[in-house]
């Protein structure tokens, strides 16, 4: 699910705890999604619609952009609607796309159940549906889900943390918008990843609501509450961590390791300078590209080749070691 | 021959399709006090506002001191030498007296200083010789209407204008203050200022003005030297032949008598530091008039009797039953109703239609319908009141703000009448009402008294008190210092008692 979203993405606790992937595009795993490299113009004249919970959050904006590019390359006309971070608007938009008689519908919802009714309407109108970036309730009749799992995302954060602090330590977690799926599931995944190692204690959980300025305040508050030596790491759930990490670095708090979520250009720079230890890279561009590619496969009679029920993208971690090999694709 | 200070030719103004001024020609000469009279809604205030620069879309021309002027904003009109006292207050309630006095005329283009403003205001009051009666640092919101009126006057007098336009400046002034105002006007006119004076007190107009113009339905129907008009002639011109007869029934026979049962009695009632102890009885079929200077506690008394203010001592009984009104709502439930003095802030919802204003008080009594109020009930009630009170225009769906002042006053009264009171306490019943309407309202109040209602009327207008009262009370410094029938006391004697530099020691007495 999207890291920058100020609103929830779907619950996904049930999804299997796949191993954390270290490389960007691994092949082989049954559910692993990879670019099928369809030839240009494969789906000439088809219409696809993406009902997105937000089109303006940087993460989702880059996903939309990649989706649109790939759709156009394949000859499809793509319509993207903005849900303005509101479930009801998302449902309306989905209905609008059905009324526009698109050939295939993609839905990026912040609630796993909100669009169920609208998806039912699409199915009655014989329109196939793909869930993109945010997994839906199992009751949803969809071709597949393209995206990552927030629970796994949390586990990746946990793994990164273990890598940064092999001996354990005191940790603060900066949470995204309260109650949102990224906040709940990433926290759960991370806690589960640390469960078997009693050396890690979470001592504080302030909130930044995925807002740059608030991340700074939260970090400052942590640094003054925990003087040198009393805190070992700060893990944020979103890419805003670069702001706080840069501040801490400027103020000599190199004793604390900072870990961000998502891999924007700002995060990349902060990893380079050493302000950030690392991050989890959920690629919005890959999600967008796959969304368009699988839509086209479905529409050109190759539906059987689409990984289902989940086409999960990998969630590689990025640290100073691999930052050069994997430049960021978007600005946060 | 004196120069013409202000000259209008063919002045017209319309609101939508309603033509309110129909080609008014009007001259004010140097050193002249020029009276302008007319019925409520005749267009006097509209003329004033046009001169003030509020209606840039008017027709016709205006000259000041022989120069043709365009009047597009109040700022411009003021710069052309026209100073205006508006009928409604133009004060900012959240600002102090000093700030209001100088608003719009601050000395420096950029800089502003509170202490300097205060000094300047004090100097200004000194020069126009007005005692405001309140500290310069008091926020205007805390002042009584009479004080606000004095501020308005001071504000206009301070302007060094060629023409001073006064829209009913005496409506809220006491007898004494009027005398003071008239001498100030005379002084100004002697120094060459042209004054346009609007009032509904025809005697006063006759006494103070040199020249007179009568407006009816937006057109000039009479004009000439004041000495050429009798009060009767003035009324006739204002109202038209037919309505003049309404004025003639003004004298009345006193209904006062011990046979009338006491409806409301107040014993040793105290209302904070500014009122009491006061004892007073209001009887059915009687009108008690209350005279007093501004600040003598009349309003406080009216409010305490009707549940608007809590008494801090004493007892009030209605029909022999002791009552403690915690709110006007409870008073109204006992049939005790107040008509407050400040129409705009305490009386009406100006954004609401006339019908809703008229029906508001009566809703309380419409029980037993599960709280439902039919449209038909509201409309027929309002329609009949509008007809009875001759509200003009007789449209119940207009917002109250679209009515002229006198007509708003009628709506205020109608609202109380609709509550079918046993006791009706009216604070200034005819402020800003024309002679015809005033006679109508007086007739109405007499009729209510004849129907068995007990009335108490507070008024600054002594003539009105004589015309209405079956009994009179005089208040001074929060106490009733005299009571009796109007026949027992002459005008001069009454005025003397109100101000009474002499015997402060007079004991409080029961009135009625």
């Amino acid at each position: 699910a999207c890291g920058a979203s100020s609103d929830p993405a779907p619950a996904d606790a049930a999804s299997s705890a796949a191993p954390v992937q270290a490389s960007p595009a691994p092949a082989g795993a049954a559910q692993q999604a990879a670019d099928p490299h369809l030839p240009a113009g494969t789906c000439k004249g088809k219409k696809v619609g993406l009902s997105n919970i937000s089109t303006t959050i940087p993460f989702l904006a880059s996903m939309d952009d990649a989706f649109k590019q790939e759709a156009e390359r394949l000859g499809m006309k793509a319509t993207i609607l903005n849900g303005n971070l509101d479930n009801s608007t998302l449902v309306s938009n989905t209905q609008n796309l059905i009324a526009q008689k698109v050939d295939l519908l993609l839905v990026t919802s912040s609630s796993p159940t909100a669009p169920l009714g609208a998806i039912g309407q699409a199915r009655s109108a014989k329109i196939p549906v793909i869930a993109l970036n945010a997994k839906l309730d199992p009751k949803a009749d969809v071709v597949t889900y393209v995206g990552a799992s927030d629970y796994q995302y949390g586990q990746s954060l946990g793994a990164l943390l273990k890598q940064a602090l092999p001996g354990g330590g005191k940790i603060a977690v900066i949470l995204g918008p309260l109650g949102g799926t990224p906040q709940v599931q990433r926290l759960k995944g991370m806690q589960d990843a640390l469960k078997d190692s009693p050396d890690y204690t979470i001592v504080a959980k302030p909130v930044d609501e995925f807002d740059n300025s608030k991340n700074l305040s939260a970090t400052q508050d942590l640094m003054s509450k925990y003087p040198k030596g009393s805190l070992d790491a700060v893990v944020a759930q979103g890419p805003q961590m670069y702001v706080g990490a840069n501040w801490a670095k400027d103020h000599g708090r190199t004793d604390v390791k900072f870990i961000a979520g998502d891999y924007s250009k700002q995060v990349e720079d902060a990893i380079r300078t050493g302000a950030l230890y690392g991050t989890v890279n959920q690629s919005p561009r890959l999600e967008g590209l796959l969304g368009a590619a699988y839509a086209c496969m479905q529409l050109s009679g190759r539906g059987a080749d689409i990984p289902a029920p989940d086409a999960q993208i990998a969630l590689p971690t990025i640290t100073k070691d691999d930052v050069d090999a994997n430049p960021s694709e978007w600005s946060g | 021959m004196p120069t013409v200070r202000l000259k209008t030719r063919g002045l017209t103004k319309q609101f939508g399709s309603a033509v309110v001024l129909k080609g008014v020609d009007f001259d004010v000469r140097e050193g002249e006090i020029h009276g302008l009279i007319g019925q409520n809604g005749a267009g006097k205030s509209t003329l004033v506002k046009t001169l003030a620069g509020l209606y840039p879309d008017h027709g016709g021309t205006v000259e000041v001191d022989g120069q043709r002027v365009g009047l597009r904003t109040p700022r411009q009109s003021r710069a052309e030498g026209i100073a205006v006292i508006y009928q409604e207050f133009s004060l900012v309630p959240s600002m102090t007296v000093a700030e209001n006095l100088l608003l719009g005329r601050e000395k420096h283009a950029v800089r502003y200083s509170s202490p300097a403003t205060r000094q300047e205001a004090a100097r200004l009051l000194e020069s126009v010789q007005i005692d405001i009666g309140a500290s310069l640092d008091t926020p205007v919101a805390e002042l009584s209407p009479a004080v606000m009126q004095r501020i308005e006057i001071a504000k206009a007098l301070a302007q060094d204008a060629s023409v001073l336009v006064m829209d009913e400046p005496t409506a809220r002034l006491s007898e004494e203050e009027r005398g003071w105002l008239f001498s100030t006007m005379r002084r100004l006119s002697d120094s060459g200022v042209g004054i346009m004076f609007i009032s509904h007190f025809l005697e006063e107009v006759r006494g103070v003005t040199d020249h007179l113009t009568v407006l009816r339905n937006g057109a000039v129907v009479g004009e000439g030297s004041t000495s050429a008009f009798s009060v009767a002639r003035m009324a006739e011109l204002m109202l038209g032949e037919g309505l003049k007869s309404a004025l003639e029934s003004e004298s009345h026979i006193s209904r006062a008598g011990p046979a009338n049962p006491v409806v409301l009695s107040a014993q040793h009632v105290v209302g904070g530091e500014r009122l009491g102890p006061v004892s007073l009885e209001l009887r059915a079929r009687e009108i008690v008039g209350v005279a007093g200077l501004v600040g003598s506690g009349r309003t406080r008394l009216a409010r305490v009797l009707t549940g608007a203010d809590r008494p801090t001592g004493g007892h009030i009984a209605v029909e022999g039953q002791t009552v403690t009104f915690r709110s006007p709502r409870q008073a109204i439930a006992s049939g005790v109703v107040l008509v407050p003095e400040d129409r705009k802030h305490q009386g009406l919802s100006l954004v609401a239609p006339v019908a809703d204003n008229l029906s508001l008080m009566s809703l309380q009594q419409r029980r037993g319908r599960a709280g439902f109020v039919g449209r038909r009930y509201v409309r027929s009630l309002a329609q009949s009141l509008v007809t009875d009170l001759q509200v003009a225009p007789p449209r119940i769906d207009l917002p109250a703000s679209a009515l002229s002042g006198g007509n708003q006053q009628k709506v205020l009264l109608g609202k109380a009448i609709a509550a079918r009171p046993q006791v009706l306490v009216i604070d200034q019943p005819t402020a800003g009402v024309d002679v015809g309407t005033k006679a109508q309202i007086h007739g109405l109040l007499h009729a209510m008294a004849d129907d068995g209602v007990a009335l108490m009327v507070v008024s600054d207008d002594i003539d009105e008190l004589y015309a209405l009262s079956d009994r009179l009370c005089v208040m001074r410094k929060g106490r009733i210092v005299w009571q009796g029938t109007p026949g027992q006391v002459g005008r001069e004697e009454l005025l003397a008692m109100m101000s009474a530099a002499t015997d402060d020691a007079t004991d409080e007495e029961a009135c009625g």
Partner: protein
Amino acid sequence: MPAAPARASLLRRGGLWLVLALVVAVLAAVSPTFRQPLNLQNILEQNSIIGIVACGMIVMMVSGGFDLSVGAVGVSASVLAAVVSGRAPVAVTIGAALALGLGIGLVNGFLIARVRINAFVATFAMASVVSGLLFVSTGAESKPADVRLLAQAAGDRVLGIPVVFVIFVLCLLSVWVFLTRTRYGHYVYSVGGNDEASHLSGVPVERVRMLAFALGGLFAGGAGLLLLGQTAVGQPTAASNWPLQAIAICVVGGVALTGGVGRAEDVLAATLLLGVIANGLNQLNVSPYWQPTVTGLVILVAVVLEQYNRLHRPSPRPAPVAPQTVSQPVTASAARTAD
């Protein structure tokens, strides 16, 4: 065709309806998918929940206040209903959610009418308090719930008419009846128009204010129930934009922020107008990036048109005349600028 005077009066009353008709006509002419019956049904369905929130907001705004906590209240109601629904019959679920809305509304009313805290601060703080309690009690987790009755109310259509729209219209009707046909409704206008005069006229000002906010909470609770029906999940973070959206609908519908003025029927027009614009832009495939701009411009144009229409109606209406009071900035305009 109506006679001249009738038409004039129609014009006067129905400025916003005219704008709505115009927008619908243009969109229907330009976009074939817009004019599909299915799409029109969608529009009705899509705007009903926020419309119900606006129903309560009208009453609060006419009384002279407004409520920034409707979102928090709606969400609380929906989470509570989601939790209760697993253990109790549906009537209890609905009752509990509505009671919660009513209760929070009453607390708001108490703070505003009795403690005399300004409505902005009181409801802003209340929204914060309520969301916090909600996070605490749920651990910030969403509560899935599949309440059939609610799902039907939110999603079903009878003869093509969305049930939720029928509910909205019923709510609006009840608000209309309340405001125009009951004693307390009259009181709401009068308190909003001039609370001191109302007090002196025997209106129980405090009780009226409390009632207005209680109703506001009740409608927000009801909207929360329908949201649960629509999304099958009680989500503590949803509905954050309800307050501003509902206020915007009311203001576009001519309800004065200063109280005393506003008509329920115009709020229906405003709800539909904003809904039609949003839908139409999507149907016309306007880029989502352009949509906010177009929406903003259409709102501005609608308000200006409505105002122009109000000022140029043929009756000697309000007193735009005098440079208006603060309370009527809109009408006010007339005076000084009209020439």
